[in-house]
């Protein structure tokens, strides 16, 4: 059973546009992470959020953890071709923090 659903699954946009990726679950997470994966490589951590309602900014990327710690969003402002990749959210359930549950992924393509 997939506990973390991401939307949209695919996103193709022009350089300079804004976009938001959503990560939703019915479970409560003690922490949530966002990873980016490029073709032929393993995922690389972008950010970790641990407090309900928390907002973190990483240059043009803004990450938010829902108040109830069941959902998260990633907003990219003025997307660039270098943002192209697979974005994965991953949560550590409150009842079992030894492992992460990964989302289904959002594949982003930014065209020049």
């Amino acid at each position, binding site marked *: 059973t997939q506990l973390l659903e991401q939307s949209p699954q695919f996103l193709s946009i022009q350089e300079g546009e804004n976009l938001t990726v959503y990560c939703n679950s019915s479970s409560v997470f003690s922490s949530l992470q966002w990873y980016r994966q490029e073709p032929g490589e393993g995922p690389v951590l972008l950010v970790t959020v*641990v407090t309900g309602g928390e907002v973190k900014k990483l240059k043009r990327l803004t990450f938010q953890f829902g108040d109830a710690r069941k959902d998260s969003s990633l907003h990219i402002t003025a997307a660039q071709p270098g943002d192209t990749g697979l974005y994965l959210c991953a949560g550590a359930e409150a009842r079992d923090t*030894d*492992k*992460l549950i990964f989302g289904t992924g959002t594949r982003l393509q930014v065209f020049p």
Partner: protein
Amino acid sequence: NAGVTQTPKFRVLKTGQSMTLLCAQDMNHEYMYWYRQDPGMGLRLIHYSVGEGTTAKGEVPDGYNVSRLKKQNFLLGLESAAPSQTSVYFCASSFRGLAATQYFGPGTRLTVL
């Protein structure tokens, strides 16, 4: 530091053959993980280990076995490969603790004919 390395990078097996994937990390991490990645499925946890000599089942453990005889190595075995095990396999490691970053290897692309 090499980080997390995986061998081999590519492998083609026939149905019923066996093989072992090797993961090695040089960061002295306690935790290690094996995932498989299939289109539209994200990453699914196969097995994991919270320390040397320990292993535990993840979300999709059937058809796989693991061993963690040394802290730096985590082996994933397929005893009798099936076409459904065609996938990209990733190993990861992390320090102990909540919200710890997982560091991933470059992956192994396995095809079972």
